Structures are given as structure tokens and as C-alpha cells.
């Protein structure tokens, strides 16, 4: 055996074992997906049915078709952002700036409204994408931890929004714009329709595109993903832009619902969005998650809010209840992740 023969043999073995790793990786991913889907679909669906039934019995005003439409109308803003966050979280990244992007979009849309509704919408979305690009560049090129990077962009975007709005609430001047959020198609509120569209987009990306598969691979084990030849940097960049895009669309909806733009509108959304996404089965550590789970998680949070009004729960307890739910979610997620690591 010559040295070069051994070298070639070694290379062949390397390729084989690489293929084996890829196969195991995709098998693992599929197994995990099925397992998680099965596990969580049960729990959340049951919880949803229970909440819905309880509310319907308590006050039948809440159980009409318009009532059902209304709950989806209410969760649309959080839900659309949750789609973007799901894709990003699965890939193992994180985005704290979505609240600021939401606020910034509302401000920009309102500032540009005099020039025309279409222009204002385009500028609003462009500003959101710009922040997404910034996030992508800082994390991918700058190799900075997403938590820190998006914390920075969150402050920058908010500061910018405060600056251009001079800390004032900007009121809209075009009555037609309000129809974006308050209008209906065939009786279905527009935000609900937008929510469904984005859910489908997210579902399609994760299930049928290479980009989606990349997300699971990168989140599952970034190093293996690099070895497997996945374009990690490009994919991550796209996920950040997509996440900010969803935040921007939600900003459009909120601006239309309130006919105002303000730099502080998005201050509280990050926690709720992440709470809903993690409740739905997406791990904070990356590698697993599913759009179907996300919508259920967001729906559960929305139903809890509604239930507090229906059941007339005192405002003092509302705080505790929300905190308990979010805490329970994160604990559960950590426990499941630990078990998963042990299984490997």
C-alpha cells in the first residue's frame, strides 16, 4: 500500500462516514419532528378545546362565528411575528429586536402617510427589512452572539424611532388605511387572513424548502451542518431578514388598528411572541419546532387573555397567571431539551 493509496482510502472512508452522519442527522430530525409533533399536539389541542368550551359555557356571547373570528384577529399580530421567530429559533438564533421593528414600522408608515398609502407601506416594510439585514450582518459577518447583536439593534431601532417621531404619537391622516386592519373579506377580518397567509408561508418554508431543512440542521448541530456542506451563513442571514419582515407586517397591522405610530408600541411583544413559540414546541436551543405548534401556542396565550375577561379574573391575579404560564413553558422546554440530549 502506497502512501497515496492510503490517502485515497482514507478519503473514501471519510465520505462514507460523512454520508452516514447526514443520514443519521436527517433520521434524527424526522424522528424528533414526529415525536415532538405527537407529544405537543395532544397537550395544546386539549388545552385549547378546554378553554374554548369553558368560555362558551360561561358566556355565550363569546361563542359565535364573529367571536371566533375575533380571537384570531386579536392574535394575528403576535402570530405573524411568531412565524418569523419560529423559523429563526429553529436555526438556533434569537431576535430581541422584533418589538423595536414593530414600533419603527408604525412610526415610518405614519410619517409617510401624507405621500400616499402605498409608499408608506413600502417604506414601513423596507425599514423592517433593513433592521433584519443589520441583524444578519452583525451575527453572520461580525460573528456576534445573536442575543447581544439583536439587543443592540433593538436599542438602535427604538432610538431611531424615538428620534424621528420626536417621542410623539403620530396620528394617521388617511381614513382608508384603517381598512387594512379593520376591513373584512367575506366576513373574515383582514388580520386573520394575513395570519393564515404567513402561517402557510412559514409551514411551506419549513416543510418543503431547502432553506427550511437547513434551519433544522443548523439548529440541531451547526458544526455538522457546516460539514454537511450547508450554506449556514446565507441561510442564517435570510432567517433574520424573514423574522424582521414578519415584525414589520405586524407593525403595519397595528398601525392600521390604532391609526397611530409610536416608538413604544412594541415594547412588550418579544416575551409574548417567544412564550407562544416555545409553548408551541419550538426549543430555545434550536433544532426543533413546528409552525402548527406555534399557532397553537399563540392561540393558547390569546385564549388565556380572553378567558381572564370572560371569567372576570381580578387584575392582580392576571399578572401572576401570565408569569406562571411563561415560566412553566420555559421549564418544560428545558426539561425536554435535557431529555433529548440524554437520548443522544
Amino acid at each position, binding site marked *: 500500500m502506497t502512501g497515496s493509496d492510503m490517502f485515497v482510502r482514507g478519503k473514501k472512508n471519510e465520505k462514507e462516514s460523512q454520508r452516514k452522519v447526514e443520514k443519521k442527522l436527517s433520521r434524527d430530525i424526522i424522528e424528533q419532528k414526529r415525536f415532538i409533533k405527537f407529544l405537543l399536539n395532544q397537550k395544546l389541542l386539549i388545552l385549547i378545546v378546554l378553554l374554548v368550551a369553558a368560555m362558551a359555557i360561561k358566556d355565550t356571547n363569546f361563542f359565535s362565528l364573529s367571536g371566533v373570528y375575533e380571537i384570531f384577529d386579536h392574535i394575528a399580530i403576535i402570530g405573524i411575528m411568531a412565524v418569523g421567530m419560529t423559523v429563526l429559533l429553529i436555526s438556533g438564533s434569537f431576535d430581541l429586536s422584533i418589538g423595536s421593528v414593530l414600533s419603527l414600522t408604525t412610526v415610518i408608515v405614519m410619517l409617510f402617510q401624507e405621500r400616499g398609502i402605498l409608499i408608506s407601506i413600502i417604506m414601513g416594510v423596507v425599514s423592517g427589512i433593513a433592521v433584519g439585514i443589520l441583524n444578519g450582518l452583525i451575527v453572520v459577518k461580525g460573528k456576534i452572539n445573536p442575543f447581544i447583536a439583536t439587543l443592540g439593534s433593538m436599542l438602535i431601532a427604538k432610538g431611531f424611532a424615538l428620534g424621528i417621531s420626536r*417621542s410623539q404619537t403620530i396620528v394617521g391622516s388617511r381614513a382608508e388605511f384603517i381598512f387594512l386592519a379593520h376591513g373584512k373579506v367575506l366576513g373574515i377580518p383582514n388580520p386573520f387572513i394575513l395570519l393564515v397567509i404567513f402561517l402557510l408561508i412559514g409551514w411551506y418554508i419549513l416543510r418543503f424548502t431547502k432553506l427550511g431543512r437547513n434551519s433544522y440542521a443548523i439548529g440541531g448541530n451547526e458544526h455538522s451542518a457546516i460539514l454537511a456542506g450547508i450554506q449556514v451563513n446565507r441561510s442564517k442571514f435570510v432567517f433574520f431578514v424573514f423574522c424582521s419582515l414578519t415584525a414589520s407586517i405586524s407593525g403595519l397591522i397595528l398601525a392600521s388598528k390604532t391609526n397611530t405610530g409610536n416608538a413604544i408600541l412594541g415594547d412588550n411583544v418579544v416575551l409574548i411572541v417567544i412564550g407562544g413559540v416555545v409553548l408551541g414546541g419550538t426549543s430555545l436551543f434550536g433544532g426543533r419546532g413546528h409552525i402548527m405548534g406555534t399557532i397553537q401556542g399563540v392561540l393558547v396565550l390569546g385564549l388565556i387573555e380572553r378567558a381572564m375577561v370572560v371569567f372576570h379574573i381580578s387584575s392582580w391575579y392576571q399578572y401572576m397567571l401570565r408569569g406562571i404560564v411563561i415560566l412553566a413553558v420555559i421549564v418544560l422546554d428545558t426539561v425536554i431539551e435535557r431529555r433529548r440530549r440524554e437520548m443522544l
Partner: protein
Amino acid sequence: MKKLLLIGLVLLVVAGFAFAGGQGTGDGSGEEKFRVGVAAPYMDPPYDAAFWRMWDKLVKEKPYSDWEIIITDAQGDLNNQINQIEDLARKEIDVLLVKPLSAAGVVPTLNKVWEASGKTLPIITVNLGTDPAQIPAVIAHTGPNYYLQGLAAGEGYVKYLDAHNLDKVNYCILLGRAGSDATNLRKQGFLDKVEEMGASDRFVLLDEQPADWYTDLGQQVAENWITSFGDKMDMIYAENDDMGIGAVNALKGAGYEKGEVLVNGVDAGFAGTSLVKEGWMTFVVLQSPMLDAEGALHLADKLRNGEKIEEFFNYIPSPIITAENADEWLPKIKETWGL
């Protein structure tokens, strides 16, 4: 397969409820209790905490104790508040009290629920009005007038300058939460009054920063100003008591004597009013949480009795408390803040 069956079952159940419950027969609780829905923006800032303390006290007495009162807390999130307004309106309530998180931001939703109720749901704004001010969906407003408070503060300072023969002051403004309407109106009122009294050139603005209504932030900002401006700064216009108290703490910490730098408060809580008595604060403008809460409940009661509310604007008075009348106000202050 199993999963599809499960989803199908869920959809069937939900559809069942949806079509069965459509008649809006409501709660079925039987009794005709007067139901009041209250959409609160947040409850933790000191003024709001006092407001709700007074509210709790007041509703223990008749006739309010016979009512069914449902309060929602938006936790400072406008999206939450508009969702909660819709949720409350969906219940069979007799009146909706709204303390808007954003004067303009709640308008589309209030219009929507009013229309959906067939223009029959009485909506009253509390503490903060809507923008534009008098919309058809709202039948009355009750609360303090932030702009008037700003005017009172402006007048208070101009009068003080005149009384003490002070020609010019360099001043800073401690602003409330950025973007809040109270913040903007108290500042605008101050500036407008100063201009109206012909004193615009006597007030030289050095800086303005938000301290979000909180004492510790007010103190931090004031400390920074003391460092940057030193003796150049003569006055701090604080948009509320707590920030004013923070400024006073900063001055005390830096070794200033009382009266060297003019500070005021708006709210007139016990601490603030005491500082006026001691001489650390020039004046405070009263915003009584008790009168505020009482105003709202009183209007709701009128509706319950079938009375008409004549005036749209039902402002609670915002008198100014200076060193001269601080003593007589202090006992009333305790009562009005529920202390």
C-alpha cells in the same frame, strides 16, 4: 391518520359552539346587576396605584358595591388594550370606562365597538381623553386636565420669579414617559402659559430628558445635570411629583440648600406636598386620585339612574399648592391619596 381525526374532531366541536352560541343570550346569570367594564392601561406607576387604591376603597360603599365591575390591565401594551376593549364590549356590560393608553390609538377600536353595539354602548373616557377630543362614540370624559396642569405650573413659576425679583432662570425639564400624552400636554401647557404671560425670554432651556415618571430615574437625570451644568442650572420643571422628589434627592446629595434650585411637582402626593412645606419644592399641582376615581364612578352612576350627562368634559380641579397653603392641604392630601 389519528392526527387528522383529532383535528377534525376539534374543528367540529368549535364549529358546534360557534353556531350554537350565536344568539348572544349572554351570561344567563339571571340578576340584573349593573355591569361596568373598565379598560385600564397599567396599574403599577405610583399615580395609577393610588388611583386603583382609591377605586377599591370607593367601590366597597353603596351604590357601587352592588355593581359587577370587570377591570382589565393592558400592562402598558396598546395591542392588549384594544383587544381587551373588544373583549369587554362583547360581554353584556352597561357602560364601558376606558383609561386610554394612547389618546389617538384607541379611537378606531372605540368606534368599532360602538358601531357593533348599534351605537348603544355608553363609553366614558377616564383620566385621559381621546384624540380627536370629542368623538361620537364617547359620551363623556372625566379626569384631570394635563394641559391645564401645565398651564398652572407655568403660572406658578412665573409668579414665583416675579415675587422674588428673578429676571432669568436656566432650567431643565424632567419629562414623563416618552410618547405619553400627559408628558406632551404638561410641557405644552407650561410653555404656552409662560409665553402668554410674556415671560418666554426669562426661561432659558438647558436640557430636557425623560425619567418615565419614576423617582430613581429622575434622580439619575438630575445628578447628571448637576454634573454638567453645575451652578448654571437654576430650576428643574418636573412633570410629576416622583421625578421632582428624585431631583430634590439629587440636589440634597450634591450639597445644595433648599431654594437654591427651584423644583416643583405635579400630583401633590403626601411626600411632594411635604417638600413644599419644607421649602424644597416651590409648588405642586394637585391631581387627586380620589377625585379622579370618584369622577368616573359618579358618571357611571348617573347612567345607572337613567340620568343624562349634560357636560362632555367633566374635569377635576387641579389647584396649585404653595408654601402658603401647604399646611392646610396636608391633611386633605392624606385622605385623597388613601394614606
